């Protein structure tokens, strides 16, 4: 049952297309993350759902009812802003009570709900304080509390963790996940950080330049990206891409060649559209590359020259060059070193390879 439905929504600002025809839906209780680079339209899309901006075309439905032109306050939507947007001249309790006061909820009920929310978010000691007396993390929790109290149908988060330092971010991520489990409310979360997307989402919507690139579970996006953009966006460090030439085309496999890889066979389902001599993109995730290739699995060997190595404590990140100038980055377990300019041999299991055509679509 579609709880949130977005149908052909577009948003234009004069000549600039911020959102160009997006359609998607979410089930009740789902945690959907909109992710993408800056300017991709994810925040705009969220603001359209909230009603803070008018759509240029398309419709939006929440819980079966069309809300496309409805005022924000009437949509049953609560939002947590990037800057928290707490009312500066009200204390925490008043901040959290404001929404309920506006719809004339009886004082007793307001008190009850606010106290419950405060308990969930561990804000009990801060109730009389003003926003400027709170730390970033505390303000964040108050912003969430303000949203919870209204028992909304839809929870929106607009890059809520960007203003927090790294340690706090990890902690708050856990809090938000826990909250989702406890409340079971449908949540839409916007971020540019793919780690947040991968860890929190039931489903991810990848956006670029106002359009949807792919929608899927984190696993789907990781294993089966439909194009090089999604493949490069998900996963950190970014996927390596190496151009390979098609030497032979067989029904179930392709014979490909690359200066650093030599000639090799790669099993593939869709070889029909490929012609000999075409150049394809081979995708290799840094975390799948190994230093000493395992002889048991089908592995592809890559000849590279080492540039430098970053020691991350328990793992090492190798920055290398292949013979044709392609950059190859490998994330390897354990502490390793290599001299600049020394030759290395990396290996990767054939099953872990990704293949994309010249337009960047997955094969």
């Amino acid at each position: 049952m579609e709880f949130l439905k977005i149908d052909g929504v577009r948003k234009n600002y004069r000549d600039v297309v911020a959102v160009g025809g997006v359609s998607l839906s979410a089930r009740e209780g789902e945690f959907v993350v909109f992710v993408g680079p800056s300017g991709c339209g994810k925040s705009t899309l969220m603001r359209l759902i909230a009603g803070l901006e008018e759509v240029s075309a398309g419709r939006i439905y929440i819980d079966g009812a069309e809300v496309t032109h409805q005022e924000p306050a009437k949509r049953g939507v609560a939002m947590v802003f990037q800057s928290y947007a707490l009312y500066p001249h009200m204390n925490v309790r008043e901040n959290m009570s404001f929404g309920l006061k506006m719809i004339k909820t009886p004082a007793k009920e307001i008190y009850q709900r606010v106290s419950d929310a405060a308990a969930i978010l561990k804000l009990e000691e801060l109730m009389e304080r003003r926003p400027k007396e709170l730390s970033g993390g505390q303000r964040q929790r108050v912003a969430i509390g303000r949203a919870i109290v209204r028992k909304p149908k839809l929870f929106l988060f607009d890059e809520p963790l960007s203003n927090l330092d790294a340690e706090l971010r990890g902690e708050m991520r856990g809090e938000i996940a826990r909250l989702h489990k406890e409340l079971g409310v449908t949540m839409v979360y916007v971020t540019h950080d793919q780690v947040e997307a991968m860890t929190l989402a039931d489903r991810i919507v990848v956006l670029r330049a106002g359009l949807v690139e792919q929608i899927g579970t984190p696993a789907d996006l990781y294993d089966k990206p439909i194009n090089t953009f999604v493949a490069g966006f998900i996963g950190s460090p970014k996927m390596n891409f190496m151009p390979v030439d098609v030497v032979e085309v067989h029904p179930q496999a392709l014979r490909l060649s690359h200066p650093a890889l030599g000639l090799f066979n790669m099993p593939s389902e869709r070889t029909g559209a490929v012609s000999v001599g075409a150049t394809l993109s081979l995708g290799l995730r840094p975390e799948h590359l190994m230093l000493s290739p395992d002889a048991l699995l089908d592995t592809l060997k890559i000849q590279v020259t080492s540039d430098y190595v970053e020691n991350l404590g328990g793992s090492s990140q190798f920055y290398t060059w292949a013979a044709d100038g392609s950059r190859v980055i490998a994330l390897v377990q354990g502490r390793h070193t290599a001299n600049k300019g020394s030759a290395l041999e990396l290996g990767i299991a054939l099953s872990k390879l990704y293949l994309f055509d010249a337009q960047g679509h997955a094969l």
Partner: protein
Amino acid sequence: MTDPLVADATTSAPAQRAYLAHGRWTPMWFLAPAVLTLFAIGIYPTLFALVTSLRKYNLTRARDGFPFIGLENYQTVLTDSTFWQTLWRTARFFMTVMPVEIVLGIVIALLLHKPGWSFTRSLVRVSLVVPLATTYAVVGLIGRLIFNRDFGVANQFGNWLGFESLDWLGSQVGAFAAIAMMDIWQWTPFCALIFLAGLSMVPNEVEEAARLETSSYFALLRHVQLPYLLPGFTAMLILRSADVLKLFDMVFTMTRGGPGAATDLVSVYIQRVGFRIFDMGVASAQAILLLILTIFISRLFITLFYREIDA
């Protein structure tokens, strides 16, 4: 842009850095020219006024000399009912125009703040400086024409609305109303601009958060925007009260303080005592008293508005 109401907690630290890398006398070189000039033009005459106020100084009776008479002038002034009436009249003027200017100012500010019709809004915003740049004396002249009984538009508008023609500038109440209206015309834009500045300091996201919690325009105004309008409101009150004490040009050209004493505001009155009746001693005493009042007002302004100048 940081929200001043929230950012305080985090911005105090850097301001403690000291700047003692200059010589002790350097500030003086930079300040001296300005300070000396002001001293010569400001302090010196003020002292002179103080001295004059302590003497009998009537230019039309110069042959009586200018003997020192101590605080007698002050006594004359403080027991002069005309003086108190003038002050009261000025206060009444203030209380008449201020509420209108503030309310209209807020309304205009809200209209200019609300998104939409951006070309018209810019046009209005730009036109707001017209009343402020218009020579006050000329404003009085225009006022005289507008409120003329026979060929003034004020009566024409009144007639269209069904009212009878009034002799505005000939009647006490009419003249007072006329100068009030011209003052409102001239200063409402200033109020509007100040309030608009206050409104633009409301962080967008706070306004949006409120829009998600209430559809009521008035609730938004009261709970979210009002705190940001309050500093502007207080500034307005103080600045305008100082202005009302200064008000001369427009009233002078429009009514000369009449009819009778209907529009005799403080500055107009003192000017008459000093330059028509030529009783400089008394006028100086009046001026000094006015000065004291003004200093009180500006002290108030600084205490409320001046942020740490020693940052």
